[in-house]
């Protein structure tokens, strides 16, 4: 009898322990992923626990892929003694994640994927936390944008699309999040090609894709990596790219807006990182080094940049800060021009 009572007690405690969710899951992480420590000379700061990499959109998008690739390379090559754990935090056009990271204050073990689209969103939405309140970390890549439609759509070239879009609110353009690069790209078309299309905002590119394939929107704006599977299958047709020059690879044939005579419809995405507002200088140096090492690996260059049609670039935190301060000014000017902000 006593034995039985003991048993029940032990079991209840075990259930209790397993229910202490985070503890259990963290223990799992640590035991599986702890690395003996980087062998090379370490900077003054090393993370004491798993580094949380916040992605301000749902899994499966461009930012997500970027974060997960970096997390993987950094961990595999032992550039970091602790794993980079990717957390998806969609919503509020990036505002939710910005607020979250801002709330981390002096925490050195939280970073987020920063993408010029989210910087735009926070400006456009007048969000409580904008990028200048966070700590800028390195820029790691430039990404491109494509205007894509469904096979069998009434317009299969960019000229036809622009012609159709001159009728007010006839053509629905799907994009991920308000005030994001997708939104700005859309506004650029409306302004400089003098079209009157309508913008439909989705939470992620995956949702935009679902709506485009289902025929609920007419065209969508995507990164190459987000639509290449559908394009190779012949389900979708790329109309044009917003890149300054033609993208190579599978998109070598796709014209740029510039070639079509729209010099002002040019937009690239900048992929970078950011940290909480009061991140220590040692931690900034640590992330500078890890990210620089990652961008120098062959795996990064072939498996990420080439495969997803991105352009290589690296700027350290200080350069990134100067770069973004200038960029933010230009976004404000464009948003004012197209009337997104006053």
């Amino acid at each position, binding site marked *: 009898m006593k034995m039985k009572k003991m048993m029940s*007690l032990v079991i*209840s405690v075990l259930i209790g322990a397993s229910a202490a969710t985070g503890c259990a899951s963290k223990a799992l992480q640590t035991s599986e992923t702890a690395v003996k420590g980087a062998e090379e000379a370490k900077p003054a700061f090393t993370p004491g626990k798993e580094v949380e990499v916040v992605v301000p959109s749902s899994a*499966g998008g461009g930012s997500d892929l970027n974060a997960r690739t970096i997390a993987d390379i950094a961990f595999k090559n032992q550039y970091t003694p602790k794993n980079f754990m990717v957390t998806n935090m969609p919503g509020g056009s990036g505002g939710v994640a910005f607020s979250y990271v801002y709330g981390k204050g002096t925490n050195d073990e939280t970073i987020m994927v920063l993408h010029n689209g989210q910087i735009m969103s926070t400006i456009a939405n007048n969000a409580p936390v904008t990028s200048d309140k966070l700590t800028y970390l390195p820029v790691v890549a430039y990404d491109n944008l494509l205007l894509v439609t469904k096979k069998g759509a009434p317009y299969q070239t960019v000229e036809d699309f622009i012609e159709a879009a001159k009728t007010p609110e006839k053509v629905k353009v799907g994009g991920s999040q308000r005030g994001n690069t997708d939104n700005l790209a859309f506004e650029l078309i409306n302004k400089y090609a003098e079209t009157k299309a*309508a913008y439909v905002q989705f939470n992620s590119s995956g949702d935009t894709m679902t709506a485009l394939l289902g025929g609920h929107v007419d065209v969508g704006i995507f990164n190459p990596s987000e639509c290449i599977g559908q394009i190779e299958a012949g389900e979708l047709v790329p109309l044009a790219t917003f890149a300054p020059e033609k993208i190579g690879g599978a998109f070598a044939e796709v014209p740029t807006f510039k070639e079509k005579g729209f010099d002002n419809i040019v937009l690239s995405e900048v992929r970078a990182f950011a940290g909480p507002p009061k991140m220590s200088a040692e931690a900034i140096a640590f992330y500078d080094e890890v990210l620089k090492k990652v961008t120098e690996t062959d795996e990064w260059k072939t498996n990420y940049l080439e495969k997803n049609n991105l352009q290589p670039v690296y700027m350290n935190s200080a350069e990134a800060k100067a770069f973004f301060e200038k960029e933010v000014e230009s976004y404000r000017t464009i948003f004012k021009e197209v009337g997104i902000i006053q």
Partner: protein
Amino acid sequence: MENIQLLLQGFSVAATIPNIAAALAGAFMGLIVGAMPGIGSLAGVALLLPLTFKMNPTTAIIMLAALYYSNMYGGSFSAILLNIPGDSPAIMTALDGYPMSRKGKAGKALFTASISSFIGGSIGIIMLTFLGPLAAKWGLSFGPAELTWLIILALTSIGWIIGDNPSKGLLATAIGMMLATIGLDKALGQPRFSFDSINLFSGVSFIPLVIGMFGFGQVIDMVVNRSEYGAVEEKRLTIKESILDKSEAKRVTPVACRSGLFGCFIGILPGAGATMAAFLSYIMEKRVGRNKAEMGQGAMEGVAAAEAANNGAAIGAFAPLLSLGIPGSGTAAVLLGGLMMWGLQPGPLLFKNNPDFVWGLIGSMYIGNILCLIVAIGCIPILMKVVRVPSSIMIPIISCICIVGTYSVNNNMFDVYLMIGAGVLAYFLKLAKISEAPILLAFVLTPMLEMYVRQAFDISSGRLNVFVGSPISITLMILIIVFCLAPVLIKLIKKPNPAE
């Protein structure tokens, strides 16, 4: 019959030792993750994803998929035994599972949950094998407007369905919707009802709310009404005693089949997911089922409907993921990211270019689902010991689980206060006989509703006709009207002849 040939090929991929081991490991982890309040399949898959990068993609997806569907089995454990749903799809399981457990039928409830999960999952897998790509294409016809109606259908039904008083149910739904509006506006990023508190900027978190409402609310009730909560003495705690007899199996099987099929279809829809599936199936069963009067007081049918549906949905979510490269649920979205990380190209060509991957996964589901059933049933005798623990021991243990579980998710003390507040609220709601399930479901569904309504208006440039723009929309709308008017009409018709 090309599919059968491909499936056999899939079996040969799935039946290798590493792949069976992966399915078994996934099944175990899924059960644990599912049983832990707070952590659901989404967090479980996201946590494990980085560990699979070095694996063979097929082995990796087999493990993560097993984790996903076995999570649906595990979610029912804590819902039935402690009235704390392990994750949101198990909320509906608690409604009948916990009362069953209080009546001394915990074993039967757990067995019903496991066997229904198995039936629901199996139906989902068969659907996926033969109709996957076709059904996924059909799912695409659900755009923002159609999904809006689907959620409104769910929200209007819930108040009428749960508890004995429709107005109290509607009140609970309204409370849930109000709680869901706190935090950053999903479309414009503007803070709402956050009172400039940084803790409320990102809204009320679901985990503290669900743990507080179910778990901590329960603790308060246990303390106040101590005499009612004596340990339930079951004579025999063996699997034998839990196995359903013939008449019980007859009650459960048809319900599980219907709900599994229905759940699978909901799972295929973009962005609907297992929670909605469990929820709509339960509603359907309560409307048309044979034993609807008893549902909510500990009916096996309630447990069966919810569990079969959420398993069916978990499998259904793979159809759009594999055949179109688009996510059918939050967890599937993480798996989509996984596909890219493993170097595969999600999209319509996946079936053609990577048949070993796709069919290996589908083949593994047949094996994995059986493994899940065996593991889950094997756990029953151990789990049932929980109901024998006297409340003097249970109360401190559940309190600890509630507090530690809530805190550890975000390491944030605010969440703990929120959890305690939700518990106190739940206790008072219980006194007022207002069920807490509609609150949580409305809380889950409202952000989706808001997003879809906004998208529908974006598409129609603000015109209302988008909501009657397709046959699906009109059908759903008519269903809503019928559901709302039916009880009133039935009353009107019945009044003249009270003899009936």
